[in-house]
């Protein structure tokens, strides 16, 4: 226990954050805000990894490494997604999901 805070409080925070991200992914209809909801989800998973590493296995570093790799993959994913979004915007002048319904011009 670190600074008198039990493990479950961290897990409650990250669970609520995860499902806020899922909820936002369902509600929002804009590609950039959906990408932001995905970032929220990945971030909450990161918190879980780090907290489990710190509280349950402080003699190893697995959780930290996996959250490092998740951060790297999130950066790669965001860059490719934003390149795609800008390209879609250039072709269709619009990035709402309902209006992006053509695959080929």
């Amino acid at each position, binding site marked *: 226990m*670190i*600074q008198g805070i039990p493990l*479950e*409080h*961290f897990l*409650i*925070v990250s*669970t*609520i*954050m*995860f*499902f*806020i*991200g*899922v*909820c*936002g992914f*369902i*509600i*929002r*209809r*804009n590609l*950039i*805000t959906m990408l*932001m909801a995905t*970032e*929220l989800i990945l*971030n909450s998973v*990161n*918190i879980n990894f*780090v907290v489990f590493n*710190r*509280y*349950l*296995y*402080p*003699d*190893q*570093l697995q959780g*930290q*490494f996996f*959250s*490092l*790799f998740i*951060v*790297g*993959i*999130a*950066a*790669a*994913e*965001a*860059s*490719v997604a934003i*390149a*795609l*979004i800008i390209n879609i*915007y*250039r*072709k269709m002048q619009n990035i709402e999901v309902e209006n992006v319904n053509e695959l080929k011009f």
Partner: protein
Amino acid sequence: MFYLFAGIILICSLLSITTRRILRAAVYLLCVLLATSGLYFMLNYQFMAAVQLTLYAGGIVVLIIFSILLTHHITHRFKHPNITKLLMGIGAGSIGIGLALVTILSHSFKATTNPELPVDMTVIGTQLLSTEKNGYVLPFELISILLLASMIAAIVIAKKEKNKNTEI
């Protein structure tokens, strides 16, 4: 201190998916990521917190804000989402939160009794690049190839084609 960070995380993440201005959503996302790095500092994982600050709060949020500025007018507001989609989203979220919290709170976690490892930069660096037991050189190399591939892919996607498609 923890409860301050937790409150910032929860309130700002809720605001970032409900606000109707997209630039404010990005700023609330930035607040969430900063508070998360505060949590890592509180857990004594300085390296992880620094990576979170530079990569997430520095890199990804700046990319997102750039793309917002390229694709939207600043004064643009979203319309309200239609009511069935809203109810479906809230329903999925609350059912998920309920199930996951019941499972978490009814499980008892057991910590190891092994001595604690000091987490400074040298330990992290040696373990990350060692091929011994507990070494992580294979995923390290994999992720470097993935980053290279995604960089090339982003450039290829985003560049303009030379000969055709000049009507844009």
